[in-house]
């Protein structure tokens, strides 16, 4: 604990809020009580269960009651931090806490809520915040019982394989001049926004077309390709040159056989070609045959590839782009570059998972990169309700129980799914984890949260259930409501930890809300991939939101639709982009 009051502490940013300076009573109290003003309280801090909320009790079995009126049932009881007297506070009713503060000499204004372990000033009648106090509370919560420790692995140490550092790119002056001199504004003279072009169905390929339409209109991805950052001619040439250097012989440009075929396989190049075609102004439906061919070559290497599922396609194609770039990054001149491929810079976020031992409170924290979040539609009771796809491995926790018809509170919402995703979940006797502190398998509490938000959040709604036990699959046709604007703040690690520890100023285990998350927790919906019909005989259609107008992309057909149609649609993959990337007004402007 720091010994001096550092003014900066009080202006600490917390979820985009700046704390007010301490009230004069707290400042006075701190000045009077030296380096450890809350030392006496520390022994009274008790968390009821491992990781439970902290409370103030002189001894564990104490039933706190107001010293003035004897009441123990009042919702708010405060212990004076100067003399430990407990007083009630029930405005507009009696407030013995306020009476205590005024009847005593100065110094008895500051009190602590006995059930919440939060500071209150009885003179100002307001909540107050103190960094040292909060640190003591959090410490007591973490170290309940056997002085458990939070052990965590920082994301950097855990997986070196995939870096997920975003470096948003915006053109500097030089870039801008180059772009303006080297390009001309797109001009269509039509009421349809640019880039809207149907994609021909090449034989049951609506699963691919639907995802491609979403990707073609994913703002940061579109910006990347349209600003020529992966040029297919350059990429091809560059790879050819490197091959020559590598073995000293020429075998790249005109060579044939397998070696050349693999060198040519670059999904990003095919994306580049597709972006050019789609944004060319030509409105006739486009056939993504070249892309399909390349992707097929990539995907045929995947063992457990399940055809016709749009989500599987999405995952495997991001991997395809990544693998190629990773190969390129191994080349000497690109090494040491922190960035990953464009697919991961756009879609990768980091999930945090805390598993806490129910016996001793020991918490193990891990961080995992993910490219989307898979959400359960049903409210399962007990069963694991979450999975996020990392790399090619896409966990599908099948054995979901039969539908519980008694769903709570009517309509399912995306926020409800996210709430469930981040809710602490008790892992029962059948899923015990090995506690490093107890040195045995214990029951545990698991909680997921989002450590780092991606630029684009893809939510995959698990509508297809595959039960390995019953050897069957089925589709859930349940309606899911999704908002057009989504605030992800409640699901961030900083918020989740804050609700676990209460309203505190404390850098939680490095998961302080960082500036990048603060700025970017607001998202806008821009694409919804829907699935209609049966499990294997269904059809995928994508709704796109451009210039705040909705368009339905059904293979070769693109039509304008009313937003109510979108709201009523059965979302299978729902795409949101950080608000700062969703340019509503600028979509209409023609660059000049």
């Amino acid at each position, binding site marked *: 604990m720091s010994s001096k009051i550092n003014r900066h502490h009080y202006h600490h940013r917390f979820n985009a809020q700046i704390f007010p300076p301490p009230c004069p009573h707290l400042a006075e109290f701190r000045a009077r009580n030296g380096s450890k003003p809350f030392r006496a309280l520390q022994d009274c801090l008790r968390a009821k269960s491992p990781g439970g909320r902290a409370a103030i009790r002189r001894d564990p079995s104490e039933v706190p*009651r107001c010293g003035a009126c*004897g009441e*123990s049932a009042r919702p708010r009881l405060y212990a004076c931090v100067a003399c*430990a*007297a407990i007083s009630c506070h029930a405005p*507009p009713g009696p407030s013995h806490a306020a009476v205590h503060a005024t009847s005593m*000499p100065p110094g008895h204004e500051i009190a602590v809520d006995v059930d919440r372990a939060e500071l209150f000033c009885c003179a100002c009648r*307001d*909540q107050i915040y103190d960094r040292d106090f909060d640190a003591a509370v959090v410490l007591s919560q973490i170290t309940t019982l056997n002085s458990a420790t939070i052990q965590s692995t920082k994301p950097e140490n855990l997986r070196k394989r995939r870096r997920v550092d975003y470096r948003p790119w915006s053109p500097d002056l030089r870039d801008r001049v180059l772009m303006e001199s080297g390009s001309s504004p797109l001009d269509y003279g039509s009421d349809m926004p640019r880039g809207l072009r149907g994609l021909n169905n090449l034989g049951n390929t609506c699963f691919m077309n639907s995802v491609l339409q979403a990707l073609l209109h994913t703002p940061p991805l579109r910006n990347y390709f349209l600003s020529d950052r992966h040029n297919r001619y350059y990429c091809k040439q560059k790879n050819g040159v490197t091959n020559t250097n590598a073995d000293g012989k020429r075998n790249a440009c005109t060579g044939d056989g397998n070696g050349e075929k693999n060198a040519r396989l670059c999904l990003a190049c095919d994306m580049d070609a597709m972006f050019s075609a789609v944004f060319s102004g030509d409105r006739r439906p486009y056939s993504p045959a070249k892309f399909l061919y390349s992707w097929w070559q990539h995907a045929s290497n995947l063992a457990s590839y399940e055809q016709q599922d749009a989500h599987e396609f999405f995952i495997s194609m991001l991997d395809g782009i990544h693998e190629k770039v990773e190969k390129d990054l191994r080349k000497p001149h690109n090494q040491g570059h922190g960035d990953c491929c464009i697919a991961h810079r756009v879609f990768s976020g980091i999930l945090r998972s805390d598993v806490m031992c129910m016996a001793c409170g020991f918490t193990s924290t891990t961080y995992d990169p993910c490219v989307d979040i898979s959400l359960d539609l049903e409210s399962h009771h007990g069963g694991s309700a979450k999975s996020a796809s990392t790399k090619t491995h896409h966990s599908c926790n099948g054995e979901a129980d039969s539908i519980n018809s008694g769903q709570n509170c009517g309509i399912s919402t995306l926020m409800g799914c996210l*709430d469930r995703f981040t809710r602490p979940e008790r892992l029962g006797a059948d899923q015990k984890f090995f506690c490093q502190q107890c040195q045995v398998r214990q029951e545990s509490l698991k909680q997921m949260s989002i450590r780092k938000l991606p630029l684009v959040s893809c939510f995959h709604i698990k509508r297809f259930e595959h039960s390995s036990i019953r050897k069957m699959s089925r589709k859930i046709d349940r309606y899911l409501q999704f908002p057009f604007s989504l605030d992800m703040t409640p699901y961030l690690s900083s918020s989740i930890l804050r609700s676990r520890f209460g309203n505190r100023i404390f850098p939680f285990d490095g998961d302080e809300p960082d500036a990048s998350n603060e700025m970017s927790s607001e998202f806008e919906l821009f694409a919804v991939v829907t699935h209609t019909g049966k499990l294997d005989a269904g059809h995928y259609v994508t709704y796109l939101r451009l210039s705040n107008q909705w368009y339905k992309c059904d293979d070769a057909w693109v039509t304008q639709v009313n937003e109510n149609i979108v709201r009523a649609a059965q979302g299978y993959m729902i795409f949101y982009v950080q608000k700062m990337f969703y340019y509503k007004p600028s979509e209409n402007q023609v660059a000049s």
Partner: protein
Amino acid sequence: MTHKRASVKRPPTPVADQVHAHSSQQLTLQEIINIKLIESGEKERLKELLRERLIECGWRDEMKALCRAFTRRKGRNNVTVDDLVHVITPKGRASVPDSVKAELLQSIRSFLASAI
């Protein structure tokens, strides 16, 4: 807890005695139940249940929105927690869904049946 009696003109001890006398004689049934609820840890469990239900049904978000609106209207620096509690409490009490009340009542009943 250390008592800094030197600086305290009227130490809290007599008050504590008074409470003691009070509690030994005239505890109402309600108070006894409350103490049993606290001592058994049931009160904490009930609170947790209530918290969860109120979040699920959107009550908490509704209250949050009300608090935000009030704070925005009054100006961030002119609102205390007590002000918020004062404005929100009547609305909050009135908008707890009946199903939540029923569930909680049922839980309290079964606790009483087992405890007394």
